[in-house]
């Protein structure tokens, strides 16, 4: 289907003040789930959506996909308003801990979703075969899903998300429950989709994976957006300090960084002190074993935000805060 005129360059995802308040119990008590989310995911980006459990990540994804209604704000996928079915036309979705029809074999399962995604009949068989190959399930084509392991189900789910060759992949905790090999497979798959110019938007709390595959990140804590941008911008450019490990230093040079004398020297320096310190170590006959700049990780950034988030304006927001 031809893309609507003027929407080709629209962001893959855009939200304006998106919010969700759940109502529970007989008295319909309000529970805030997400508040005022302004998000923009450029087309072609590999975008990580991070936050602790209960922060509002899955709620956001469900609202984008029309599975839950927003109680405030608006959203668009490729410029098409959510939750119209048209907005989901170029989208593939993998839910967290996916469960699928156990009575279907892997091949039947992918054919089912290919038909639902209106993959043209002549292309279906070829697409299904290629995807089974890609997620390493080709030899299990005729095996019912009920006998699949958790990791195999996750891979089948990924193939399902890719079956219509979507421009936007939305993945909810795609690495969850996978062994190291499975994680590498998923990571490679995300990187490959990015190379093909597709947008990948995925939520995760495995932050090392996010750092490895994402160029942009948004962080949500306690139902509120706490920051978004490139990974580098979020982590900050500055190096907080540098750890130097040297051996064979018989005598320490003088200076502010001096530590107790000894053959095995470990010191923490300000970045500006490093050059002088390395010269001093070598001048004293020692060898530099390692120089490690301490940069912030996404994990540290997230933990700082979690700490900063409680309480929000004297009220608790979301499940976590």
């Amino acid at each position, binding site marked *: 289907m031809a893309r609507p005129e003027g929407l080709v360059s629209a962001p893959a995802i855009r939200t304006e003040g998106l919010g969700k308040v*759940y109502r529970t119990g007989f008295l319909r008590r309000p529970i805030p789930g997400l508040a005022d989310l302004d998000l923009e995911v450029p087309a072609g980006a590999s975008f990580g959506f991070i936050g602790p459990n209960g922060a509002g990540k899955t709620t956001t994804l*469900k609202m984008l*996909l*029309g*599975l*839950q*209604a927003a109680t405030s704000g608006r959203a668009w996928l490729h410029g098409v308003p959510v939750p119209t*079915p*048209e*907005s*989901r*036309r170029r*989208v593939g*979705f993998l*839910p967290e*801990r*996916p*469960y*699928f*029809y156990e*009575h*279907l074999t892997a091949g039947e399962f992918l054919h*089912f*979703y290919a*038909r*639902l*995604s*209106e993959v043209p009949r002549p292309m279906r068989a070829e697409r299904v075969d290629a995807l089974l190959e890609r997620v390493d399930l080709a030899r299990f084509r005729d095996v019912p899903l009920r006998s699949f392991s958790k990791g195999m189900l996750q891979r089948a*789910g990924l193939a*399902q998300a890719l079956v219509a060759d979507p421009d936007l992949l939305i993945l909810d905790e795609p690495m969850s429950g996978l062994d190291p090999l499975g994680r590498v497979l998923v990571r490679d798959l995300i990187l490959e989709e990015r190379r093909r110019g597709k947008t990948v938007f995925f939520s995760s709390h495995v932050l090392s994976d996010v750092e490895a595959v994402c160029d942009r990140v948004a962080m949500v804590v306690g139902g509120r957006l706490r920051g978004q941008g490139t990974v580098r911008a979020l982590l900050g450019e500055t190096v907080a300090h540098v750890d130097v490990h040297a051996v064979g230093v018989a005598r320490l040079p003088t200076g502010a960084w001096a530590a107790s004398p000894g053959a095995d020297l470990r010191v923490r320096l300000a970045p500006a002190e490093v050059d002088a310190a390395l010269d001093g170590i070598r001048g004293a006959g020692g060898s530099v074993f390692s120089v490690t700049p301490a940069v912030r990780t996404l994990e540290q950034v997230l933990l700082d935000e979690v700490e900063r988030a409680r309480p929000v304006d004297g009220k608790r927001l979301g499940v976590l805060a």
Partner: protein
Amino acid sequence: MSRIVTIAANTVREAIRDKVLGSIALFGGLLVVVSLAMRDLSIGDTDKAVQGLALSAMAFIGAVLAVFLGVGLVWKELERKTIYTLASKPMPRWHLLLGKYVGLWATLMVELAALTAVYVAVTAPTLGMPGPASWIALAALALELTFLCAWATLFSTFAAPASAAAYTVSVYVIGHFADDLQRFGQASRDPAFRETATTLYRLVPNLEMFNLRAEAVHGVLVPAGELASIAAYGLGGTLAVLSVAVLVFERRDFS
């Protein structure tokens, strides 16, 4: 349209591969055979009594299947979270619900056809092929199951299977006593009770309308006009109940 067919086909496939369903269908077949075998043990006009019993057994099994399959129709998708991948496809939600309903309906019709085949195979050698009145009764039963499926589908959009089953069985039972409710009202001398009974009669579905088994047994052909009104009632009622189900389903949050 193709998506509705795809979802319906998957629903039928799931039902066929469900062992419990197979057991119920087998039990239904046996029930029909046993009903017909009872002719040797009966006194009087045995053929008619036994024929009526077999048709009743088919109606009972059909209703059990409609409740058993229908009440979990949407709930199972929610429980297994398969709804996430289905409802996130680029289609309106009513396609999904209608696909599930059509799948359930098709499964029931296949089961009814299988039971009919058993019925014909057992009765044909001794009683001959069923006459037009029997076929009309079977068509009316198919229509009743179509209507009952719609109720089960509606309840499955907002209730867990146990509650949905209780609601559907209530509709089935009340629906078969609707005529009695009206008769009670008319027989009463109290105008208030008569009015209340008449109002209730108009509100509850009248499933007894689809019971043409006595006519089938006695070979009585129901007039065409009456058949047309039965068909209109069944199809109109099904459409109305499904419309409510769609409204409920469209507003649901899948959490």
